[in-house]
């Protein structure tokens, strides 16, 4: 603590974020089984959607002949959503066990506490994404190219951060793991009410209307571009803007809940 007190503020903040991320990493290393559902769920969805809805590519107007390529980025984002929601559940557990109270009486800024949880989720989301991608490539999904791959993984990390902000906000609001279904259902709904199953033109009218206003549609399209075609800046920037906007909004709301909890 003395060493930390001697550090400049920004370095102390970084050290606190790193410590919180290390704690999340330790949880993963000490209970590896806890990561299995987060990896299995998007993989099962990928295999299931591909086996069940693969024939949709026969519809006139479908943008690719490979449903594996079309769906694999969606499942990677789903993995990010599950991981982010799990960060919220873990925070709720920490609140129930009194760990968060101990953090809140420390002199660490609130945003640092939130950032540690959110960045840990971002890093953790790489595991299910890499697993689903490997399964997808083995089953015949197209190689997205280096640029497409980097963009897809960037979208995954940022989506996990957004989902972690959402989960943290609910955890801080309800202070109970009972809110877990709300965290998971929220991320699942926002990712799947996009062009997840089919291109925009082939969605049912109501779903098309929802997908058009859902900012995550831009994220899905940006993550998918390398798998179904070429990578362009025009397809990328809307996804980046959507994620930054969501991160700013949900991050601010989560921070507000944390300040309210501290009061």
């Amino acid at each position, binding site marked *: 603590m003395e060493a930390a007190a001697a550090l400049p503020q920004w370095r102390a903040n970084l050290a606190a974020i790193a410590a919180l991320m290390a704690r999340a990493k330790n949880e993963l290393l000490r209970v590896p089984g806890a990561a299995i*559902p987060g990896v*299995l*769920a998007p993989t*099962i*969805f990928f*295999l*299931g*959607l*591909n*086996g*069940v*809805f*693969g*024939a*949709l590519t*026969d*519809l006139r107007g479908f943008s690719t002949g490979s*449903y594996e390529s079309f769906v694999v980025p969606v499942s990677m984002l789903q993995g990010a959503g599950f991981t982010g929601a799990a960060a919220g559940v873990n925070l709720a557990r920490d609140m129930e066990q009194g760990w968060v109270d101990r953090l809140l009486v420390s002199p660490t800024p609130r945003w640092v506490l939130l950032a540690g949880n959110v960045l840990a989720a971002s890093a953790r989301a790489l595991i299910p994404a890499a697993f689903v991608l490997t399964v997808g490539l083995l089953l015949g999904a197209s190689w997205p190219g280096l640029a497409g791959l980097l963009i897809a993984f960037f979208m995954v990390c940022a989506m996990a951060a957004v989902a972690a902000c959402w989960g943290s906000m609910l955890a801080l609001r309800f202070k109970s*793991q*009972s*809110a*877990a*279904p*709300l965290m998971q*259902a929220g991320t*699942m*709904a926002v990712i*799947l*009410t996009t062009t*997840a*199953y*089919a291109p925009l033109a*082939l*969605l*049912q009218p*109501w*779903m098309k209307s*929802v997908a058009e206003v859902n900012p995550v549609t831009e994220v899905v399209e940006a993550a998918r571009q390398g798998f179904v075609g070429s990578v362009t800046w025009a397809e990328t920037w809307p996804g980046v803007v959507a994620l930054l906007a969501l991160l700013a909004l949900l991050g601010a709301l989560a921070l507000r809940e944390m300040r309210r909890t501290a009061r």
Partner: protein
Amino acid sequence: MSDLAVNARVVRGLGMRSLRQTLRRPQLMAPILVFPTLLLAIQTGGAGGAVDLPGFPPVQSFLQFMLAGAMMQSLMLAGNSGGIALAVDIEMGFTDRLFAAPIPRYAIVLGRLAGTAALGFLAALWFLAIGLVFGAEIHSGVPGALIAIALVTATAMAVGGIGAAIALRTGSASVVQGLFPLVLVLLFLSSAFFPNDLMIQPARTIAEYNPLSFIVEGIRDPIISGISASELLDAVLAIAGIVALGLLLSARALRHRLRVG
């Protein structure tokens, strides 16, 4: 009061407790109603164009086709939730108190299954109501709806038997909860969400022999077309098979639980 009447009261009491337990906990209720409803909406909106595929059975809408799949998902998760709740009872010692009570052992399991069947019944009503509200017709009318409700209720009880057996054998809620992904796998590898003939291999071949496919077709048939005796018989036989398996596994697991404590 006769023994049978006393046992029926025990089963009813435990069944009501099981139902209340689920209705009071959002984390148990969400997988049974919220997730299948959400997935029904998303799949209907996202993959609704599938009805234009050559070979898709004649249906009024994709929602009409999907109702049976949503009910199936819901009842499978109800069976899983029932198993989790029973395992929690074992972990907390409640089941030990029931074992010490002067009631037959089978009533303990049957009470839990009665609660699961009630949840299946509610799920069937919920999804039929959703279908009707959003414009899906029940092609066979009231008799068809009653058949669908009866099949969903019976299947919930049958699947609950397997969940109860695993709970009794392991006594661990986390083990039963760990079966959740398996439930999804079994569903995806059946004709719950798409016509069997249009699925991609190897899912198509597996779905052809998956007993859940027979049940889901039995539930779907009166909704999208007429009541067919052969589809109904296949569904009843598949349910009977799952009931037999559940009974066998539950009886063995119960003996094991009484032996090891």
